[in-house]
């Protein structure tokens, strides 16, 4: 059972502080590269309009008050909030706004690092985490699009068949190692949690390397090639 405090104790041995505000957490940590901002969610938070708005507000605060301070995104979410109210109020807009605030931070020199310490799902992870320059997950973390049983129902493919496919392909299953193979995660963190983060802080990466990594690791053999074919096509 990972909670954010125990994760931070291992991630930031030089010290950290976290404030809880509903299902949002924020604070700072000391690293050998200086102080970094912490921002994220707890309790498998479903991200709806209120939480997305609060998170975006914090990103804007960091941009305005702490120029170029790296932001470490601590992710534990069950995805976008599945609720009539949040769709009524326009959750797409709030999640997009959160994404754009992170993008602005990156453009203004804030290194973005995300760490899934427990769970990350679909639209919630898209806006809070996948936007980072470098992404990590603890080895116990679950990252997925949807529960396999729900997928089975919608796709009309038996659960057994999907589980079979999980064994031979990183495309379906929820493990963090799948997302490494597909190029979306830099690495799974185990044992030494802080060194990879220290290293990521000193090697900022502005370009999206995930398709290339997906090819190198064999999880996605076509994405990188197709992107380049499109860029170079003669029209």
């Amino acid at each position, binding site marked *: 059972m990972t909670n954010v405090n125990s994760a931070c104790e291992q991630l930031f041995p030089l010290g950290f502080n976290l404030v809880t505000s509903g299902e949002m957490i924020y604070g700072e940590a000391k690293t050998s590269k200086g102080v970094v901002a912490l921002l994220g969610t707890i309790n498998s938070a479903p991200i709806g309009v209120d939480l997305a708005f609060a998170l975006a507000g914090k990103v804007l605060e960091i941009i305005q008050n702490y120029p170029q301070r790296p932001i470490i995104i601590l992710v534990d979410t069950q995805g976008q909030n599945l609720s*009539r109210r949040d769709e009524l109020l326009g959750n797409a807009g709030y999640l997009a706004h959160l994404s*754009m*605030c992170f993008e602005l931070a990156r453009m203004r020199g804030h290194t973005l690092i995300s760490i899934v310490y427990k769970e990350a799902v679909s639209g919630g992870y898209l806006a809070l985490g996948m936007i980072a320059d470098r992404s990590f997950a603890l080895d116990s973390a679950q990252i997925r699009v949807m529960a396999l049983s729900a997928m089975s129902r919608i796709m009309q493919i038996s659960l057994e068949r999907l589980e079979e496919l999980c064994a031979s392909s990183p495309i379906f299953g929820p493990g963090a190692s799948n997302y490494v193979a597909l190029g979306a995660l830099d690495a799974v963190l185990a044992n030494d949690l802080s060194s990879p983060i220290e290293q990521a802080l000193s090697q900022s990466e502005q370009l999206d390397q995930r398709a290339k990594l997906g090819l190198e690791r064999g999880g996605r053999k*076509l994405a990188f090639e197709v992107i380049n074919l499109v860029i170079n096509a003669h029209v």
Partner: protein
Amino acid sequence: MRLENISGLYESSARERISLILDAATFQEILPPFKRISSPHLKTLGMPIAFDDGIVIGVGLFEGKKVFCAAQEPGFMGGSVGEVHGAKLTGLLERAAIEKPAAVILILDTGGVRLHEANAGLIAISEIQRALFKARSMGVVVIALSAGSNGVYGGIGIVARCCDYVLITEQGRLSVSGPEVIESQKGVEEFDARDKALVWRTMGGKHRYLQNEAQAYTKDSIKNIRATIAAYFGKPVPLSLEELLRQHKSLGQRLEKFSDCADALDIWTKMGIQNPDQIPSLDDESFITIANRVRDHD
């Protein structure tokens, strides 16, 4: 295909939509079907592939100006995003950041991630988003259009709202979670997916325009859609602190005013609309007149 019989986008295919929206006979497709760049994952599942993996991308002219255009094919796998489909769109946006066309027009019609490619689809959507930001940071205006049969859902709903502008028609929808997903996870009390009127009040074109989730609303006619798109040329929205603070304030006000509203009718009432229950049945022109009186302008 006989294009002169098609008056709007709703029932047309991706290829037809591009032919109708862009200047006649100017579209040059990138990675056309004869290249056979299709999904390896669908093959593994024993499912039919499409030679364009359900998305048509390329370059053309719009009122004589060079534009990039993408259209998702609603009939293939619900317009959903798989590895190849997503990479085509990412590549187009990355190319736009380099070539800087006058605009990128995204004719979206999708349920979001293609479950048959699950994790690869989700990552693809994130890559599309990054490439979109790259294009926008180079000053390229990116316009998303929701006029289609599936709506614009899932992660692509988020991507659409990351574009400079969203244009929507009455039939268009824009959301993150679809009605069926909400109902299946939270129950019919939370959302009755078969209640079409509820779906459109909550996620449909008119509501999205009223609350400024969509910046433009048009009648589903080629003439009107083209005129609406044309109006945004040369008007990229900057990705700046000033702009995001402004949007943040606006989104905060939306929460303050409408947070406790149970239904769109309550929202429309609070906005000052006299007969909110008539909004769904209003014709486009009448609706636009009323909407423009009450909605916040950017």
